[in-house]
Protein backbone atom coordinates (compact mmCIF):
# COMPACT_ATOMS: atom_id res chain seq x y z
CA UNK A 1 0.00 0.00 0.00
CA UNK A 2 1.63 3.20 -1.13
CA UNK A 3 -0.30 6.32 -0.05
CA UNK A 4 -1.10 8.27 -3.18
CA UNK A 5 -1.28 11.78 -1.78
CA UNK A 6 0.43 13.89 0.85
CA UNK A 7 -2.73 13.89 2.95
CA UNK A 8 -3.02 10.11 2.92
CA UNK A 9 0.68 9.87 3.82
CA UNK A 10 0.01 12.12 6.79
CA UNK A 11 -3.04 10.05 7.71
CA UNK A 12 -0.93 6.88 7.59
CA UNK A 13 1.70 8.27 9.97
CA UNK A 14 -0.94 9.77 12.26
CA UNK A 15 -2.78 6.43 12.51
CA UNK A 16 0.49 4.58 13.08
CA UNK A 17 1.45 7.04 15.84
CA UNK A 18 -1.98 6.78 17.48
CA UNK A 19 -1.81 2.98 17.42
CA UNK A 20 1.74 3.04 18.75
CA UNK A 21 0.71 5.36 21.57
CA UNK A 22 -2.08 2.98 22.61
CA UNK A 23 0.40 0.08 22.59
CA UNK A 24 2.77 2.13 24.76
CA UNK A 25 -0.05 2.91 27.21
CA UNK A 26 -0.91 -0.81 27.33
CA UNK A 27 2.71 -1.69 28.11
CA UNK A 28 2.64 0.90 30.90
CA UNK A 29 -0.59 -0.59 32.27
CA UNK A 30 0.92 -4.09 32.18
CA UNK A 31 4.00 -2.82 34.02
CA UNK A 32 1.78 -1.21 36.67
CA UNK A 33 -0.11 -4.50 37.08
CA UNK A 34 3.14 -6.43 37.37
CA UNK A 35 4.67 -4.14 39.99
CA UNK A 36 1.57 -3.93 42.19
CA UNK A 37 0.22 -7.39 41.47
CA UNK A 38 -3.23 -8.29 40.18
CA UNK A 39 -4.74 -6.62 43.26
CA UNK A 40 -4.98 -3.46 41.11
CA UNK A 41 -7.25 -5.26 38.65
CA UNK A 42 -10.87 -6.31 39.21
CA UNK A 43 -9.77 -9.94 39.23
CA UNK A 44 -9.73 -12.02 42.40
CA UNK A 45 -9.67 -15.63 43.54
CA UNK A 46 -13.09 -16.32 42.00
CA UNK A 47 -12.95 -14.36 38.75
CA UNK A 48 -9.38 -15.28 37.87
CA UNK A 49 -9.60 -14.33 34.19
CA UNK A 50 -10.87 -10.82 33.61
CA UNK A 51 -11.14 -8.22 30.88
CA UNK A 52 -7.67 -8.92 29.37
CA UNK A 53 -8.83 -12.45 28.55
CA UNK A 54 -11.96 -11.06 26.86
CA UNK A 55 -9.78 -9.02 24.49
CA UNK A 56 -7.12 -11.73 24.09
CA UNK A 57 -9.59 -14.51 23.24
CA UNK A 58 -11.44 -12.17 20.85
CA UNK A 59 -8.24 -11.38 18.98
CA UNK A 60 -7.04 -15.00 18.89
CA UNK A 61 -10.41 -16.33 17.69
CA UNK A 62 -10.74 -13.52 15.12
CA UNK A 63 -7.16 -14.22 13.95
CA UNK A 64 -8.11 -17.73 12.97
CA UNK A 65 -11.20 -16.48 11.15
CA UNK A 66 -9.32 -13.73 9.35
CA UNK A 67 -7.80 -16.53 7.25
CA UNK A 68 -11.26 -17.19 5.75
CA UNK A 69 -10.64 -15.17 2.63
CA UNK A 70 -7.25 -16.76 1.93
CA UNK A 71 -8.70 -20.23 2.55
CA UNK A 72 -11.61 -19.64 0.19
CA UNK A 73 -9.11 -18.57 -2.47
CA UNK A 74 -6.38 -21.18 -1.99
CA UNK A 75 -8.24 -24.21 -0.65
CA UNK A 76 -11.65 -23.89 -2.26
CA UNK A 77 -10.30 -22.35 -5.47
CA UNK A 78 -12.59 -19.32 -5.62
CA UNK A 79 -10.60 -17.05 -7.96
CA UNK A 80 -12.44 -13.86 -6.96
CA UNK A 81 -11.07 -14.11 -3.42
CA UNK A 82 -7.45 -14.82 -4.38
CA UNK A 83 -6.27 -11.21 -4.80
CA UNK A 84 -7.37 -10.54 -1.22
CA UNK A 85 -5.52 -13.54 0.24
CA UNK A 86 -2.31 -11.70 1.28
CA UNK A 87 -4.21 -9.18 3.42
CA UNK A 88 -6.18 -12.03 4.95
CA UNK A 89 -2.94 -13.78 6.01
CA UNK A 90 -1.32 -10.55 7.25
CA UNK A 91 -4.39 -9.80 9.34
CA UNK A 92 -4.23 -13.28 10.92
CA UNK A 93 -0.64 -12.60 12.00
CA UNK A 94 -1.57 -9.13 13.32
CA UNK A 95 -4.62 -10.27 15.33
CA UNK A 96 -2.82 -13.30 16.74
CA UNK A 97 0.16 -11.19 17.83
CA UNK A 98 -2.15 -8.65 19.49
CA UNK A 99 -4.05 -11.39 21.34
CA UNK A 100 -0.92 -13.15 22.53
CA UNK A 101 0.55 -9.85 23.71
CA UNK A 102 -2.44 -9.34 26.01
CA UNK A 103 -2.45 -12.96 27.16
CA UNK A 104 1.24 -12.94 28.05
CA UNK A 105 1.22 -9.54 29.77
CA UNK A 106 -1.70 -10.63 31.94
CA UNK A 107 0.27 -13.59 33.33
CA UNK A 108 1.23 -13.38 36.97
CA UNK A 109 4.85 -13.90 35.92
CA UNK A 110 5.16 -12.66 32.32
CA UNK A 111 8.94 -12.64 32.58
CA UNK A 112 8.79 -16.44 32.82
CA UNK A 113 7.65 -16.78 29.21
CA UNK A 114 10.85 -18.72 28.59
CA UNK A 115 9.65 -21.28 31.16
CA UNK A 116 6.43 -21.68 29.20
CA UNK A 117 8.49 -22.15 26.04
CA UNK A 118 10.73 -24.81 27.55
CA UNK A 119 8.45 -26.77 29.92
CA UNK A 120 5.52 -28.56 28.30
CA UNK A 121 2.84 -30.62 29.96
CA UNK A 122 1.30 -32.41 27.01
CA UNK A 123 -1.87 -33.24 28.94
CA UNK A 124 -2.59 -29.50 28.97
CA UNK A 125 -4.53 -27.97 26.09
CA UNK A 126 -2.83 -24.68 27.03
CA UNK A 127 0.57 -26.19 26.26
CA UNK A 128 -0.75 -27.50 22.94
CA UNK A 129 -2.13 -24.08 22.15
CA UNK A 130 1.29 -22.49 22.63
CA UNK A 131 2.61 -24.82 19.93
CA UNK A 132 -0.44 -24.17 17.73
CA UNK A 133 -0.15 -20.37 18.04
CA UNK A 134 3.56 -20.33 17.23
CA UNK A 135 2.98 -22.81 14.43
CA UNK A 136 0.34 -20.55 12.89
CA UNK A 137 2.85 -17.68 12.81
CA UNK A 138 5.32 -19.91 10.95
CA UNK A 139 2.71 -21.24 8.50
CA UNK A 140 1.37 -17.73 7.84
CA UNK A 141 4.88 -16.45 7.12
CA UNK A 142 5.36 -19.22 4.54
CA UNK A 143 1.87 -18.67 3.17
CA UNK A 144 2.43 -14.94 2.73
CA UNK A 145 5.75 -15.64 1.04
CA UNK A 146 4.11 -18.11 -1.36
CA UNK A 147 1.34 -15.63 -2.13
CA UNK A 148 3.59 -12.63 -2.74
CA UNK A 149 6.56 -14.28 -4.49
CA UNK A 150 5.50 -15.15 -8.00
CA UNK A 151 8.11 -17.96 -8.33
CA UNK A 152 6.63 -19.70 -5.28
CA UNK A 153 3.04 -19.39 -6.50
CA UNK A 154 2.71 -23.16 -6.87
CA UNK A 155 3.18 -23.62 -3.13
CA UNK A 156 0.26 -21.35 -2.22
CA UNK A 157 -2.28 -24.16 -2.45
CA UNK A 158 -0.50 -26.78 -0.27
CA UNK A 159 0.58 -24.16 2.29
CA UNK A 160 -2.93 -22.71 2.22
CA UNK A 161 -4.35 -26.17 2.87
CA UNK A 162 -1.95 -26.62 5.81
CA UNK A 163 -2.93 -23.19 7.18
CA UNK A 164 -6.63 -24.07 6.85
CA UNK A 165 -6.24 -27.36 8.73
CA UNK A 166 -3.97 -25.73 11.31
CA UNK A 167 -6.35 -22.92 12.14
CA UNK A 168 -9.34 -25.27 12.49
CA UNK A 169 -7.27 -27.30 14.98
CA UNK A 170 -6.09 -24.09 16.66
CA UNK A 171 -9.62 -22.78 17.23
CA UNK A 172 -10.67 -26.23 18.45
CA UNK A 173 -7.83 -25.87 20.94
CA UNK A 174 -8.88 -22.36 21.98
CA UNK A 175 -12.48 -23.49 22.54
CA UNK A 176 -11.27 -26.55 24.40
CA UNK A 177 -9.50 -24.34 26.96
CA UNK A 178 -13.04 -23.87 28.23
CA UNK A 179 -14.58 -27.11 26.98
CA UNK A 180 -12.20 -29.20 29.08
CA UNK A 181 -13.05 -27.44 32.36
CA UNK A 182 -14.96 -30.37 33.80
CA UNK A 183 -16.02 -28.74 37.04
CA UNK A 184 -17.62 -25.51 35.83
CA UNK A 185 -21.28 -25.11 34.91
CA UNK A 186 -20.51 -22.51 32.25
CA UNK A 187 -18.06 -24.65 30.30
CA UNK A 188 -17.39 -28.43 30.27
CA UNK A 189 -18.96 -29.08 26.90
CA UNK A 190 -17.73 -30.55 23.63
CA UNK A 191 -19.90 -28.09 21.69
CA UNK A 192 -17.64 -25.19 22.71
CA UNK A 193 -14.97 -26.23 20.18
CA UNK A 194 -17.28 -26.02 17.10
CA UNK A 195 -18.95 -22.97 18.68
CA UNK A 196 -15.58 -21.22 18.73
CA UNK A 197 -14.94 -22.23 15.10
CA UNK A 198 -18.28 -20.70 14.08
CA UNK A 199 -17.52 -17.56 16.10
CA UNK A 200 -14.08 -17.33 14.49
CA UNK A 201 -15.55 -17.47 10.99
CA UNK A 202 -17.85 -14.52 11.75
CA UNK A 203 -15.45 -12.42 13.82
CA UNK A 204 -12.54 -12.99 11.43
CA UNK A 205 -14.50 -12.08 8.33
CA UNK A 206 -15.84 -8.97 10.10
CA UNK A 207 -12.27 -7.97 11.04
CA UNK A 208 -11.12 -8.63 7.47
CA UNK A 209 -13.84 -6.45 5.99
CA UNK A 210 -13.04 -3.58 8.36
CA UNK A 211 -9.32 -3.83 7.62
CA UNK A 212 -9.89 -4.10 3.87
CA UNK A 213 -12.20 -1.05 3.83
CA UNK A 214 -9.90 1.01 6.04
CA UNK A 215 -6.69 0.23 4.16
CA UNK A 216 -8.29 0.76 0.75
CA UNK A 217 -9.66 4.10 1.86
CA UNK A 218 -6.26 5.12 3.19
CA UNK A 219 -4.67 4.19 -0.13
CA UNK A 220 -7.39 6.05 -2.02
CA UNK A 221 -8.70 2.90 -3.66
CA UNK A 222 -12.03 1.18 -4.16
CA UNK A 223 -12.51 -1.28 -1.28
CA UNK A 224 -13.72 -4.29 -3.24
CA UNK A 225 -15.54 -4.93 -6.50
CA UNK A 226 -19.31 -5.02 -6.15
CA UNK A 227 -19.77 -8.66 -7.01
CA UNK A 228 -17.23 -9.87 -4.47
CA UNK A 229 -18.62 -7.46 -1.88
CA UNK A 230 -22.07 -9.01 -2.33
CA UNK A 231 -20.60 -12.47 -1.75
CA UNK A 232 -18.68 -11.38 1.36
CA UNK A 233 -21.84 -9.79 2.69
CA UNK A 234 -23.82 -13.01 2.26
CA UNK A 235 -21.00 -15.10 3.71
CA UNK A 236 -20.75 -12.93 6.82
CA UNK A 237 -24.51 -13.30 7.33
CA UNK A 238 -24.20 -17.11 7.08
CA UNK A 239 -21.33 -17.12 9.60
CA UNK A 240 -23.31 -14.93 12.04
CA UNK A 241 -26.24 -17.36 11.78
CA UNK A 242 -23.90 -20.35 12.31
CA UNK A 243 -22.48 -18.72 15.45
CA UNK A 244 -25.98 -18.02 16.78
CA UNK A 245 -26.93 -21.63 16.08
CA UNK A 246 -24.07 -23.05 18.17
CA UNK A 247 -24.67 -20.55 21.00
CA UNK A 248 -28.33 -21.62 21.00
CA UNK A 249 -27.42 -25.32 21.06
CA UNK A 250 -25.06 -24.73 24.00
CA UNK A 251 -27.69 -22.93 26.07
CA UNK A 252 -30.57 -25.22 25.09
CA UNK A 253 -28.54 -28.26 26.13
CA UNK A 254 -27.86 -26.63 29.49
CA UNK A 255 -31.53 -25.66 29.91
CA UNK A 256 -32.52 -29.29 29.45
CA UNK A 257 -30.36 -30.41 32.40
CA UNK A 258 -31.89 -29.72 35.81
CA UNK A 259 -28.43 -29.32 37.35
CA UNK A 260 -27.68 -26.41 35.00
CA UNK A 261 -31.01 -24.57 35.52
CA UNK A 262 -29.69 -22.16 38.17
CA UNK A 263 -26.69 -21.19 36.05
CA UNK A 264 -28.79 -20.61 32.93
CA UNK A 265 -31.27 -18.49 34.87
CA UNK A 266 -28.34 -16.45 36.17
CA UNK A 267 -26.63 -15.89 32.83
CA UNK A 268 -29.78 -15.37 30.74
CA UNK A 269 -32.24 -13.68 33.14
CA UNK A 270 -31.22 -12.58 36.61
CA UNK A 271 -27.44 -12.14 36.86
CA UNK A 272 -26.96 -8.47 35.93
CA UNK A 273 -25.08 -7.26 33.92
CA UNK A 274 -24.68 -10.52 32.01
CA UNK A 275 -28.22 -11.03 30.60
CA UNK A 276 -28.27 -7.45 29.24
CA UNK A 277 -24.87 -7.96 27.60
CA UNK A 278 -25.90 -11.32 26.19
CA UNK A 279 -29.30 -10.34 24.79
CA UNK A 280 -28.67 -6.67 24.06
CA UNK A 281 -24.97 -6.83 23.18
CA UNK A 282 -24.50 -10.19 21.48
CA UNK A 283 -27.94 -11.28 20.23
CA UNK A 284 -29.51 -7.95 19.18
CA UNK A 285 -26.66 -5.48 18.50
CA UNK A 286 -24.03 -8.09 17.59
CA UNK A 287 -26.14 -10.51 15.54
CA UNK A 288 -29.73 -9.43 14.69
CA UNK A 289 -28.94 -5.87 13.58
CA UNK A 290 -25.92 -6.99 11.50
CA UNK A 291 -28.10 -9.66 9.88
CA UNK A 292 -30.59 -6.99 8.81
CA UNK A 293 -27.74 -4.85 7.45
CA UNK A 294 -26.24 -7.82 5.62
CA UNK A 295 -29.39 -9.39 4.20
CA UNK A 296 -31.74 -6.48 3.52
CA UNK A 297 -31.32 -5.19 -0.06
CA UNK A 298 -31.65 -1.61 1.18
CA UNK A 299 -28.24 -1.80 2.86
CA UNK A 300 -26.15 -3.17 0.00
CA UNK A 301 -23.30 -0.63 0.18
CA UNK A 302 -19.86 -1.24 1.68
CA UNK A 303 -20.56 1.26 4.49
CA UNK A 304 -23.50 -0.82 5.75
CA UNK A 305 -21.32 -3.96 5.62
CA UNK A 306 -18.61 -2.11 7.56
CA UNK A 307 -21.20 -1.07 10.16
CA UNK A 308 -22.38 -4.69 10.37
CA UNK A 309 -18.76 -5.85 10.79
CA UNK A 310 -18.17 -3.34 13.57
CA UNK A 311 -21.34 -4.47 15.34
CA UNK A 312 -20.34 -8.13 15.00
CA UNK A 313 -16.97 -7.26 16.61
CA UNK A 314 -18.58 -5.35 19.49
CA UNK A 315 -21.10 -8.18 19.92
CA UNK A 316 -18.11 -10.54 20.11
CA UNK A 317 -16.67 -8.63 23.06
CA UNK A 318 -20.09 -8.66 24.77
CA UNK A 319 -20.38 -12.41 24.18
CA UNK A 320 -16.93 -13.11 25.60
CA UNK A 321 -17.54 -10.88 28.62
CA UNK A 322 -20.63 -12.94 29.46
CA UNK A 323 -18.97 -16.25 28.57
CA UNK A 324 -15.67 -15.73 30.40
CA UNK A 325 -16.52 -13.42 33.31
CA UNK A 326 -20.18 -14.35 33.82
CA UNK A 327 -19.14 -18.00 33.73
CA UNK A 328 -16.75 -17.47 36.63
CA UNK A 329 -18.91 -15.03 38.58
CA UNK A 330 -21.48 -17.78 39.11
CA UNK A 331 -20.31 -19.79 42.13
CA UNK A 332 -18.88 -23.29 41.76
CA UNK A 333 -21.38 -25.90 42.88
CA UNK A 334 -19.32 -27.93 45.36
CA UNK A 335 -22.24 -28.87 47.63
CA UNK A 336 -25.35 -29.51 45.50
CA UNK A 337 -28.56 -29.20 47.50
CA UNK A 338 -27.06 -27.00 50.21
CA UNK A 339 -27.11 -23.30 50.96
CA UNK A 340 -23.43 -22.37 51.27
CA UNK A 341 -21.59 -19.60 53.16
CA UNK A 342 -17.90 -18.99 53.86
CA UNK A 343 -15.27 -16.27 54.24
CA UNK A 344 -13.95 -17.34 50.81
CA UNK A 345 -17.20 -16.24 49.14
CA UNK A 346 -18.42 -19.78 48.52
CA UNK A 347 -21.94 -19.82 47.14
CA UNK A 348 -21.84 -16.11 46.28
CA UNK A 349 -21.99 -14.40 42.91
CA UNK A 350 -18.77 -12.45 42.41
CA UNK A 351 -19.05 -8.71 41.79
CA UNK A 352 -16.23 -8.34 39.28
CA UNK A 353 -15.64 -4.76 38.09
CA UNK A 354 -12.83 -4.27 35.58
CA UNK A 355 -10.17 -1.68 36.39
CA UNK A 356 -8.64 0.88 34.00
CA UNK A 357 -5.24 -0.88 33.62
CA UNK A 358 -6.99 -4.07 32.53
CA UNK A 359 -9.02 -2.21 29.95
CA UNK A 360 -5.97 -0.36 28.65
CA UNK A 361 -4.04 -3.62 28.33
CA UNK A 362 -6.90 -5.19 26.35
CA UNK A 363 -7.27 -2.16 24.12
CA UNK A 364 -3.50 -2.24 23.55
CA UNK A 365 -3.91 -5.72 22.04
CA UNK A 366 -6.29 -4.33 19.42
CA UNK A 367 -3.91 -1.41 18.87
CA UNK A 368 -0.97 -3.79 18.40
CA UNK A 369 -2.94 -5.75 15.78
CA UNK A 370 -3.84 -2.44 14.11
CA UNK A 371 -0.21 -1.26 14.03
CA UNK A 372 1.07 -4.58 12.64
CA UNK A 373 -1.64 -4.65 9.95
CA UNK A 374 -1.06 -1.01 9.00
CA UNK A 375 2.74 -1.25 8.89
CA UNK A 376 2.55 -4.65 7.17
CA UNK A 377 0.21 -3.30 4.51
CA UNK A 378 2.64 -0.43 3.91
CA UNK A 379 5.68 -2.69 3.66
CA UNK A 380 4.15 -5.56 1.67
CA UNK A 381 1.97 -5.49 -1.45
CA UNK A 382 -1.03 -7.07 0.28
CA UNK A 383 -3.77 -4.99 -1.28
CA UNK A 384 -5.06 -6.54 -4.51
CA UNK A 385 -3.58 -5.12 -7.71
CA UNK A 386 -6.96 -5.00 -9.45
CA UNK A 387 -8.14 -2.21 -7.15
CA UNK A 388 -5.06 -0.24 -8.22
CA UNK A 389 -6.26 -0.55 -11.78
CA UNK A 390 -9.73 0.57 -10.75
CA UNK A 391 -8.28 3.61 -9.02
CA UNK A 392 -5.99 4.38 -11.98
CA UNK A 393 -8.89 4.15 -14.40
CA UNK A 394 -10.64 6.83 -12.40
Amino acid sequence: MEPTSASSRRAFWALLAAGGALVAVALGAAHYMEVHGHAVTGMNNQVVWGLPHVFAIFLIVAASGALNVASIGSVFGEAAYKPHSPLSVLLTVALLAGGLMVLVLDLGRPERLVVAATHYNFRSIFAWNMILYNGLFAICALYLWALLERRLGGYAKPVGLAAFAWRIILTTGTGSIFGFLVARQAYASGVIAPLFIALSLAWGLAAFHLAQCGLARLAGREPMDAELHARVRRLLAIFVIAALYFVAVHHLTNLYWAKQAAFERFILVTGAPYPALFWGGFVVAGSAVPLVLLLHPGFAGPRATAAASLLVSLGALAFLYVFIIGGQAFPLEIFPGYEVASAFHDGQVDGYAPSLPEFLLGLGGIAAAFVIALAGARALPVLPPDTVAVAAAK
Partner: protein
Amino acid sequence: MNPVDQRRRDFLGKAAVAAGAMIAPGVILYDYAHAKQGAEPVSGKVRWGMLIDTTKCASGCRECVDACNRENGLPGSTRPTDSQWIRKVDLKDLKSGKAVSLPVMCQHCAEPPCVDVCPTGASFKREDGIVLVDRHTCIGCRYCMMACPYKARSFVHEPTTGQKPDVPRGKGCVESCTLCVHKVDRGGTPSCVEACAAAGHGAIVFGDLNDPASEISKRVRAATTTQLRADLRTDNGVRYQGL
Protein backbone atom coordinates in the same frame (compact mmCIF):
# COMPACT_ATOMS: atom_id res chain seq x y z
CA MET B 1 60.73 -29.11 27.69
CA ASN B 2 61.00 -25.69 26.15
CA PRO B 3 60.05 -22.60 28.18
CA VAL B 4 56.91 -22.02 26.12
CA ASP B 5 55.59 -25.51 26.97
CA GLN B 6 56.43 -24.96 30.64
CA ARG B 7 54.54 -21.65 30.71
CA ARG B 8 51.59 -23.32 28.97
CA ARG B 9 51.64 -26.09 31.58
CA ASP B 10 51.74 -23.55 34.43
CA PHE B 11 48.89 -21.63 32.88
CA LEU B 12 46.75 -24.75 32.45
CA GLY B 13 47.43 -25.81 36.05
CA LYS B 14 46.48 -22.43 37.48
CA ALA B 15 43.43 -22.25 35.24
CA ALA B 16 42.28 -25.66 36.51
CA VAL B 17 42.66 -24.54 40.14
CA ALA B 18 40.80 -21.29 39.44
CA ALA B 19 37.99 -23.11 37.62
CA GLY B 20 37.69 -25.59 40.51
CA ALA B 21 37.47 -22.74 43.02
CA MET B 22 34.71 -21.12 40.99
CA ILE B 23 32.64 -24.27 40.48
CA ALA B 24 32.97 -25.77 43.99
CA PRO B 25 30.48 -23.51 45.82
CA GLY B 26 27.92 -24.15 43.11
CA VAL B 27 28.39 -27.91 43.45
CA ILE B 28 27.88 -27.68 47.21
CA LEU B 29 24.73 -25.58 46.76
CA TYR B 30 23.46 -28.12 44.23
CA ASP B 31 23.91 -30.87 46.81
CA TYR B 32 21.95 -28.89 49.40
CA ALA B 33 19.13 -28.32 46.95
CA HIS B 34 18.87 -32.01 46.19
CA ALA B 35 19.36 -33.30 49.74
CA LYS B 36 16.49 -35.33 51.09
CA GLN B 37 14.72 -33.62 53.89
CA GLY B 38 13.19 -36.75 55.35
CA ALA B 39 14.87 -40.06 56.03
CA GLU B 40 13.02 -41.82 53.18
CA PRO B 41 12.41 -40.78 49.57
CA VAL B 42 8.81 -40.02 48.61
CA SER B 43 7.09 -43.32 47.86
CA GLY B 44 4.00 -44.29 45.91
CA LYS B 45 3.29 -46.92 48.57
CA VAL B 46 1.94 -44.10 50.74
CA ARG B 47 -1.24 -42.14 49.96
CA TRP B 48 -1.56 -39.28 52.40
CA GLY B 49 -5.12 -38.27 53.15
CA MET B 50 -7.48 -36.70 55.65
CA LEU B 51 -10.82 -37.70 57.10
CA ILE B 52 -12.95 -34.81 58.30
CA ASP B 53 -15.74 -35.75 60.71
CA THR B 54 -18.29 -32.99 60.21
CA THR B 55 -20.26 -34.13 63.28
CA LYS B 56 -17.31 -33.01 65.43
CA CYS B 57 -16.58 -29.78 63.53
CA ALA B 58 -18.03 -26.80 65.41
CA SER B 59 -19.65 -23.95 63.52
CA GLY B 60 -17.78 -20.72 64.22
CA CYS B 61 -14.55 -22.53 65.20
CA ARG B 62 -11.60 -21.35 63.10
CA GLU B 63 -8.74 -23.15 64.86
CA CYS B 64 -7.69 -25.04 61.71
CA VAL B 65 -7.80 -21.87 59.59
CA ASP B 66 -5.76 -19.81 62.06
CA ALA B 67 -3.21 -22.59 62.47
CA CYS B 68 -2.79 -22.87 58.69
CA ASN B 69 -2.26 -19.11 58.38
CA ARG B 70 0.35 -19.13 61.17
CA GLU B 71 2.19 -22.18 59.85
CA ASN B 72 2.34 -20.99 56.26
CA GLY B 73 2.84 -17.26 56.81
CA LEU B 74 -0.50 -16.27 55.26
CA PRO B 75 -1.92 -12.85 56.16
CA GLY B 76 -5.26 -14.28 57.32
CA SER B 77 -7.36 -11.47 55.85
CA THR B 78 -10.40 -12.42 53.79
CA ARG B 79 -10.68 -9.93 50.94
CA PRO B 80 -11.54 -11.59 47.60
CA THR B 81 -7.89 -11.20 46.55
CA ASP B 82 -6.39 -12.73 49.72
CA SER B 83 -5.00 -16.25 49.81
CA GLN B 84 -7.00 -18.75 51.83
CA TRP B 85 -5.56 -22.26 51.80
CA ILE B 86 -8.28 -23.59 54.08
CA ARG B 87 -11.67 -22.05 54.85
CA LYS B 88 -14.62 -22.97 57.03
CA VAL B 89 -17.81 -23.55 55.04
CA ASP B 90 -21.26 -23.51 56.66
CA LEU B 91 -23.89 -25.56 54.90
CA LYS B 92 -27.66 -25.73 55.30
CA ASP B 93 -29.61 -28.49 53.59
CA LEU B 94 -32.16 -26.72 51.39
CA LYS B 95 -34.82 -29.38 52.04
CA SER B 96 -34.37 -30.42 55.66
CA GLY B 97 -32.61 -27.34 57.04
CA LYS B 98 -29.88 -29.53 58.58
CA ALA B 99 -26.78 -27.41 59.25
CA VAL B 100 -23.19 -28.66 58.84
CA SER B 101 -19.85 -26.92 59.26
CA LEU B 102 -16.64 -28.17 57.69
CA PRO B 103 -13.21 -27.05 56.48
CA VAL B 104 -12.42 -27.14 52.76
CA MET B 105 -8.90 -27.12 51.37
CA CYS B 106 -7.03 -28.71 48.45
CA GLN B 107 -8.56 -32.17 48.19
CA HIS B 108 -5.27 -33.70 46.95
CA CYS B 109 -7.00 -35.61 44.15
CA ALA B 110 -5.57 -38.78 42.66
CA GLU B 111 -6.70 -37.38 39.27
CA PRO B 112 -6.13 -33.66 39.83
CA PRO B 113 -7.65 -31.40 37.11
CA CYS B 114 -5.15 -28.66 38.09
CA VAL B 115 -2.24 -30.94 37.17
CA ASP B 116 -3.87 -31.91 33.87
CA VAL B 117 -4.33 -28.33 32.68
CA CYS B 118 -1.08 -26.73 33.91
CA PRO B 119 0.84 -25.81 30.73
CA THR B 120 4.33 -25.95 32.29
CA GLY B 121 3.88 -28.86 34.69
CA ALA B 122 4.26 -26.51 37.68
CA SER B 123 1.18 -28.12 39.23
CA PHE B 124 2.21 -31.64 40.08
CA LYS B 125 1.29 -34.61 42.23
CA ARG B 126 3.92 -36.34 44.31
CA GLU B 127 4.13 -40.11 44.47
CA ASP B 128 2.54 -39.98 47.92
CA GLY B 129 -0.53 -38.13 46.61
CA ILE B 130 0.31 -34.59 47.76
CA VAL B 131 -0.57 -32.01 45.08
CA LEU B 132 1.80 -29.03 44.97
CA VAL B 133 2.77 -26.01 42.87
CA ASP B 134 6.41 -25.60 41.83
CA ARG B 135 6.95 -21.88 42.46
CA HIS B 136 9.85 -21.82 40.01
CA THR B 137 7.86 -22.90 36.97
CA CYS B 138 4.43 -21.40 37.75
CA ILE B 139 3.86 -18.62 35.18
CA GLY B 140 0.70 -17.35 36.91
CA CYS B 141 -1.72 -18.25 34.08
CA ARG B 142 -4.38 -19.30 36.64
CA TYR B 143 -5.71 -22.07 34.42
CA CYS B 144 -5.44 -24.45 37.41
CA MET B 145 -7.80 -22.15 39.35
CA MET B 146 -10.29 -22.38 36.49
CA ALA B 147 -9.98 -26.17 36.53
CA CYS B 148 -10.12 -26.85 40.28
CA PRO B 149 -13.61 -28.09 41.22
CA TYR B 150 -13.14 -27.06 44.87
CA LYS B 151 -12.02 -23.42 44.63
CA ALA B 152 -9.02 -24.61 46.59
CA ARG B 153 -6.36 -22.44 44.97
CA SER B 154 -5.41 -18.82 45.53
CA PHE B 155 -3.45 -16.43 43.34
CA VAL B 156 -0.95 -14.17 45.10
CA HIS B 157 -2.36 -10.78 44.11
CA GLU B 158 0.13 -8.58 46.00
CA PRO B 159 3.78 -8.55 47.10
CA THR B 160 4.23 -10.96 50.03
CA THR B 161 5.54 -10.21 53.51
CA GLY B 162 6.35 -12.41 56.50
CA GLN B 163 7.29 -15.50 54.51
CA LYS B 164 8.27 -18.65 56.37
CA PRO B 165 11.58 -20.33 55.37
CA ASP B 166 9.80 -23.66 54.79
CA VAL B 167 6.95 -22.15 52.77
CA PRO B 168 8.10 -20.04 49.81
CA ARG B 169 5.40 -17.77 48.39
CA GLY B 170 5.53 -15.13 45.68
CA LYS B 171 3.42 -12.52 43.93
CA GLY B 172 2.10 -13.69 40.60
CA CYS B 173 2.06 -17.41 41.43
CA VAL B 174 -0.75 -19.76 42.38
CA GLU B 175 -0.69 -21.55 45.73
CA SER B 176 -2.80 -23.88 47.84
CA CYS B 177 -2.74 -26.26 50.79
CA THR B 178 0.48 -28.30 50.73
CA LEU B 179 -0.79 -30.72 53.37
CA CYS B 180 2.07 -29.11 55.38
CA VAL B 181 4.45 -31.17 53.26
CA HIS B 182 7.46 -29.65 55.08
CA LYS B 183 6.18 -31.18 58.33
CA VAL B 184 4.93 -34.44 56.83
CA ASP B 185 8.33 -35.10 55.24
CA ARG B 186 9.86 -34.86 58.73
CA GLY B 187 7.33 -37.28 60.17
CA GLY B 188 4.92 -34.60 61.42
CA THR B 189 1.24 -33.86 60.85
CA PRO B 190 -0.45 -30.89 59.16
CA SER B 191 -1.00 -27.90 61.43
CA CYS B 192 -4.79 -27.84 60.96
CA VAL B 193 -4.99 -31.41 62.28
CA GLU B 194 -2.91 -30.55 65.35
CA ALA B 195 -4.92 -27.37 66.05
CA CYS B 196 -8.25 -29.19 65.77
CA ALA B 197 -7.05 -31.86 68.21
CA ALA B 198 -5.62 -29.26 70.61
CA ALA B 199 -8.99 -27.46 70.63
CA GLY B 200 -10.58 -30.73 71.76
CA HIS B 201 -12.56 -31.40 68.59
CA GLY B 202 -10.42 -34.06 66.94
CA ALA B 203 -12.50 -33.65 63.78
CA ILE B 204 -9.60 -34.18 61.36
CA VAL B 205 -7.68 -37.45 61.06
CA PHE B 206 -4.51 -37.46 58.97
CA GLY B 207 -2.73 -40.56 57.76
CA ASP B 208 -1.82 -43.05 55.08
CA LEU B 209 -4.87 -44.26 53.18
CA ASN B 210 -2.80 -47.12 51.73
CA ASP B 211 -1.88 -48.53 55.15
CA PRO B 212 -4.74 -50.80 56.32
CA ALA B 213 -3.55 -50.48 59.92
CA SER B 214 -3.64 -46.66 59.98
CA GLU B 215 -6.38 -44.92 61.94
CA ILE B 216 -7.67 -43.14 58.83
CA SER B 217 -7.99 -46.41 56.93
CA LYS B 218 -9.86 -48.05 59.83
CA ARG B 219 -12.24 -45.10 60.11
CA VAL B 220 -12.86 -45.02 56.34
CA ARG B 221 -13.66 -48.76 56.48
CA ALA B 222 -15.97 -48.42 59.46
CA ALA B 223 -18.00 -45.32 58.54
CA THR B 224 -19.68 -43.98 55.43
CA THR B 225 -17.52 -41.22 54.01
CA THR B 226 -17.89 -39.03 50.96
CA GLN B 227 -15.57 -37.25 48.56
CA LEU B 228 -16.63 -33.79 47.34
CA ARG B 229 -17.88 -33.81 43.72
CA ALA B 230 -17.48 -37.59 43.64
CA ASP B 231 -19.25 -37.47 40.25
CA LEU B 232 -16.03 -36.09 38.75
CA ARG B 233 -14.07 -39.23 39.80
CA THR B 234 -11.07 -37.16 40.90
CA ASP B 235 -10.61 -39.60 43.82
CA ASN B 236 -9.86 -37.07 46.53
CA GLY B 237 -7.42 -37.72 49.34
CA VAL B 238 -9.70 -35.70 51.64
CA ARG B 239 -12.87 -37.47 52.76
CA TYR B 240 -15.84 -36.20 54.76
CA GLN B 241 -17.94 -38.05 57.31
CA GLY B 242 -21.47 -36.98 58.24
CA LEU B 243 -22.13 -35.02 55.08
